[in-house]
């Protein structure tokens, strides 16, 4: 008969394990905290913090992201719930931003609209960034005919007015958010390709890249280990600024009826549907307008801030020119 551990032994063992996990967690947390503190006091972050506008941009973007994530908890009403008899009611305790032409709560629709805008922004910027980076790296690193061919394709696409081309593509594909994403991504990747290619042309001439080549390192490895990490700074800046453009373009295309299908709450669609009530129910149009304005402002300020930190040469050159 073997000695089986008693209940108190088991509890003790569990307690010991929990204590050990707790100690480890505290240690990890401490490490993370010190890393955060170190990062907070690092030169780039100090530089970023030194400009109030950068911080405002970051706060707006974080607010937007948190709003989108916690929309179901934050929204006071179901954004699609209609109360026709309570339509076009002004701001009140029940409906802080009023109701729209279907008696839907404007605040709740704005909160859920943040999800749509961010989702499209992230998707379009992500797709554009991936395609643009791949094309830019290929063109810049391979050079020769490959570079010529890819860059002329970029030139052709850039020759079209971006939003107009997106309008045509979305018009052909039919109204839906997915089609807007496709249209904006088709239009948007070219600027990334240009920026990445320019950076790659410069980075590939660096000593460490040459050294890697002489050591016989494979092309893909050189690109992955040495080139890409050194060209991502300007790309991140561009992506942040591009989020603002994509949000604005999505709102524009939705305003024209090419975006979200009803009853999905989307800011551009809310403005489009509410514009006939501009004179009698200002809140239906103005609050989505303000939401778009703040979102665009937030990403632009954040993008400017990141550019100052990640690409200080541009600021220097501007200062040197005395502008």
């Amino acid at each position, binding site marked *: 008969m073997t000695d089986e551990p008693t209940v108190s032994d088991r509890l003790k063992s569990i307690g010991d394990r929990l204590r050990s996990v707790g100690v480890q967690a505290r240690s990890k947390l401490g490490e993370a905290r010190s890393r955060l503190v170190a990062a907070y006091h690092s030169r780039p972050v100090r530089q970023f913090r030194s400009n109030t506008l950068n911080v405002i941009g970051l706060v707006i973007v974080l607010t937007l992201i948190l709003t989108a994530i916690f929309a179901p908890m934050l929204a006071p009403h179901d954004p699609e719930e209609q109360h026709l008899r309570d339509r076009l009611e002004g701001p009140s305790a029940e409906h802080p931003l009023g109701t729209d032409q279907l008696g839907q709560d404007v605040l709740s629709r704005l909160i859920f609209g943040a999800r749509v805008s961010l989702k499209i922004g992230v998707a379009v910027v992500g797709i554009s960034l991936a395609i643009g980076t791949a094309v830019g790296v290929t063109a810049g690193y391979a050079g020769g005919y490959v570079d010529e061919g890819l860059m002329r394709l970029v030139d052709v696409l850039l020759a079209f007015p971006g939003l107009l081309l997106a309008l045509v593509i979305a018009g052909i594909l039919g109204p839906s958010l997915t089609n807007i994403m496709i249209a904006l991504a088709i239009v948007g990747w070219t600027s990334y390709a240009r920026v990445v290619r320019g950076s790659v042309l410069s980075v590939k001439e660096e000593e460490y890249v040459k050294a890697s080549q002489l050591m016989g390192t494979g092309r893909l490895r050189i690109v992955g280990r040495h080139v890409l990490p050194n060209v991502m700074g300007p790309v991140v800046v561009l992506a942040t600024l591009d989020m603002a453009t994509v949000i604005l373009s999505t709102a524009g295309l939705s305003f024209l009826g090419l975006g979200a299908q*009803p009853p999905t709450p989307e800011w551009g669609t809310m403005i489009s549907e509410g514009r006939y009530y501009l004179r009698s129910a200002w809140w239906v149009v103005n609050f989505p307008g303000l939401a778009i304005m703040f979102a665009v402002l937030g990403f632009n300020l954040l993008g400017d801030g990141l550019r100052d930190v990640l690409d200080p040469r541009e600021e220097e050159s501007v200062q040197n020119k005395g502008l």
Partner: protein
Amino acid sequence: MAGNKLNRRTVLKSAAAVGALSIAGCAENTSGNSSGVRIALNTDPTAEVWNTHGGITPYWTNVMEPLVWVNQEMDTEPWLATDWEQTSETTWEFAIREGVSFHNGDKLTADHVVYSFETLLSELAYAPGWLRLEGPESIVALDEYTVEFTTTEPFSVFPGNIAHNMVCIQHPDRNPDENRVIGTGPYQVDEVVVQQEVVTSSFDDYWNDAGQVDELVFEVIEDPNTRSLSLENDEIDIGMSPPRSQIDSLESNDGVEVARQETAGSCYGGFNLYDAPTDDPVLRRALNHAVDQQLIVDTILENVGSPARVPISPTIYWSAHDQVDPYEYDEDTASSLVEESAYGGEMITIVVPNDLVNGRDIAQVLLDDFTSVGVEAEIQMAERAQYSDLVRNGNGHLFLDTSGSNSGAADYVIYDSFHSDGDVNQRRYRNEETGVQNLGGEVDTLIEDGLQATESAVKEEKYVQAQERMKAQAVTLPVYYDEFVAAYQSGLEGVSFSPIPEFTSWTSLEK
């Protein structure tokens, strides 16, 4: 560049100059002209599509006239033709009014009528099918004042069909490249400013009652809010279709009057009768009971229009509105009918053209109503051409749109939508022997009989029977009968609109 430096004086001078120019610009409008009337349309009266009509729209402007007019009762009335007679199954003789002058002084004859119809047939691809006329031999001048039309098939509603603004009589010297429009109407064109306005003046030699005001200016203001503001700012005298949300405010404005006119139009959803789950009449009845049309009219439509029972507006004399009972709004009945039906939780797609006024809002109300009785639904907005394709292919379950007549023959409203060989159903009917909104069989026969009936009573009887059968099978989900609204300065007199608003005559207008 010190020389270019701005100082306060320069800025003030520039601001003063800009201000003065702005004031001068604002001051220039003809609404102050005591004998001129400015009418704001919601579409461009000079759009390229009107090149067939000399470069200006034949709607509203009273510059060109048809042979047959449509009166307030939606009946046909002699106009440039004084009489007509069906001489065989496919031939019609029209007597042309004598003593009618064109704006260039020439007298109207049968040759002008032949020229006008031939122009229409050659320049508009859809005209031969629409008018049932093909080739020059289908329009012949029998003498100076008699024209014979030969239709491609027996077409009893031919006179009503050509009672349409677009089927107007023009002089051969018209020239769209020079915006030279020559008609016979009470107003003649003085100036065309492309994409902006058409300036017309009263035609002294008009054959009928001449216009009371010297000048009518038709300008385009596409945005309804801007039209409404322009009216309140006294920049225009008449504004068509103000935003519904502004009608109450305009009606309470002392300086503005609001005119309302029931039209020959209606808005309804047509069910796809051949695809599940809307192939089940019990479910279709349930969905009819689920919708409160009165609430839609009271709220979304801001009391413009009235709740519909059938897809045909009661301004058309053969509408079955008075003969059928409506599907009363009752959620409980709707829910129990849904349970009774074969509905198994499928998604119903409501297809809506994106140019349908208030279409998005109405579709969302329908979706909400359907959901509340246990039917899943989604909305698909579509650009007009795509919408037409979706309907004809039966891609969807409920097709929301408006329907109405711009001519004295409203027969096509019922034929095109509900006859198996009508425009909406033809593609699937011919390819798959099904269709979309067509019950087929007896209803097809009734529609054909109504179409060929020459007596109003017979036509009414046949069409009413067809609508009763359609109602029993809940072929449609009627939403509202349309009402036209225009706002005008209270100093104007004689403003009244036709059930086909574009047929409005301005001759009784006084300022």
